[in-house]
């Protein structure tokens, strides 16, 4: 087989791309933590989100 290294490299790239798609991985900014699920359901306001809103004012031209 010609270019065995390139073929191997290509298969690795392809496998990585396929696996990434398969698991639905993205570059989205998502933080992970663990809580007691019942406590949030009982008192949603008690949870302090990690996410900070982007206060962007467009406000017209």
């Amino acid at each position, binding site marked *: 087989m*010609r*270019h065995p290294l*390139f*073929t191997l*490299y*290509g*298969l690795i*790239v*392809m496998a*990585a*791309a*396929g696996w*990434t*798609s*398969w*698991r*639905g*991985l*993205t*570059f*989205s*900014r*998502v*933080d*992970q*933590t*663990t*809580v*007691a*699920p019942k406590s*949030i*359901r009982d008192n*949603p*306001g008690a*949870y302090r*989100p*990690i*996410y*900070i*809103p*982007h*206060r*962007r*004012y*467009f*406000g*017209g*031209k």
Partner: protein
Amino acid sequence: MPQVRALFCPNCGGTIQLRGYAQTVNAVCEHCLSVLDTKAESLRVIQQIQERTRIEPAIPLGSRGTFEGTRYEAIGFQQRSIDVDDETYSWREYLLFNPYKGYRYLTEYDGHWNYVRTLPALPVRSKYLTRPALVYEGRRFVHFQHAAARTTYVLGEFPWQVRTGETVGTDDFISPPYLLSAESTEHEVVYSLGTYTEPAAVWQAFGLQGAPPWRRGVFANQPSPYSRPASMWRRFASLTALLLVVLISVAIITPHERVLEQVYRYASHTPAAAPFVTPTFELRGRPSSVVVRVDTDIDNDAASFALALINDETGQVWDFGADLGYWHGRDEDGNWSEGRRNAAATVPDVPAGRYYLRVEPSIDEAAPISGVASDPNRERGFKYTLSVTRGWFGWWPFLVAFPLLLIPPIAATARYYSFEGKRWSESDYSTYLSS
């Protein structure tokens, strides 16, 4: 190998050894460098003046070496030169002799060696694109260079009339690792075929001491260490096609299931502005992404959603958010609008389980609306739809993988054409751009 015949130089009396026997026409006295006619009854001096600087052949005359299974003896040496753009380029030729096989040649230029034999048949004239070419034994040789080669130094014996200062026209045609040379005089054209030979092979064949001199530059018929990039591009095409097949297959089998869709209303200064949780919903199947989408009817305002996807069984939380805003109006240029009324966030690699969303909508109370300072006590609100979809397929892995696959063939192409560019820079076609 037969013994040599010894004669005496009529000019200086030095001993001259003839190794080529009856075929030898001219010999050069190694003591006084006179060119002698060996066909005369007694040796006759036919040229006395040579360049005073003696050149020591890298292969001493009289050395024997084996090429293609035949033992040859080095019996003659000459240096030839061409002038290009006021620059003189010189190469060296060694005449090899075997009484049964005849003559062969070794040529050397800047450390590059060729093993040369004269052709028993004529090549056929041809064309390659716009360039002259020759076809010999089914192989096409493309024209490389035309020059007038001048003999500048001779030593040993030769089966032809040899003189320093003699000039012949040369045309080189290449098909690496071969070089087909046409040497033309008024009366004849002699074709010879050179095969690029590794310097170490010459050293080994003649049992020469030390290491051969370093090669400089790229020689006309030097084989490229890099293969043509076409096969690399074919492999790239097949890998890209395979990548597309894999990703399209993943896209087809990725679930696309809406697991939650709820409509809410946000109103500032009311309980509807407080954080809340959605009903639970079930995510099934293999770990995959989850898309949370917010569609609003927001108008000349902005909102943020702090969102948390929470596994109701394990307590694992994916914390993320969505920001949106939509403004429109009319000014001297006409109607305008900017921003968007919806936003989506993708949560990757979420395992199966029972989940709910914690939602914390908000608006920036202090932000002015359309350039007019807002009243912080004014109620602001909007309606929004919250939806959760299991499974999302994006093309970004392809957009990353495709350039990564491109790197090796581009590098191979650059390497190949850089080598070929160096080769052809020494030719009559130095503006060479493509093969």
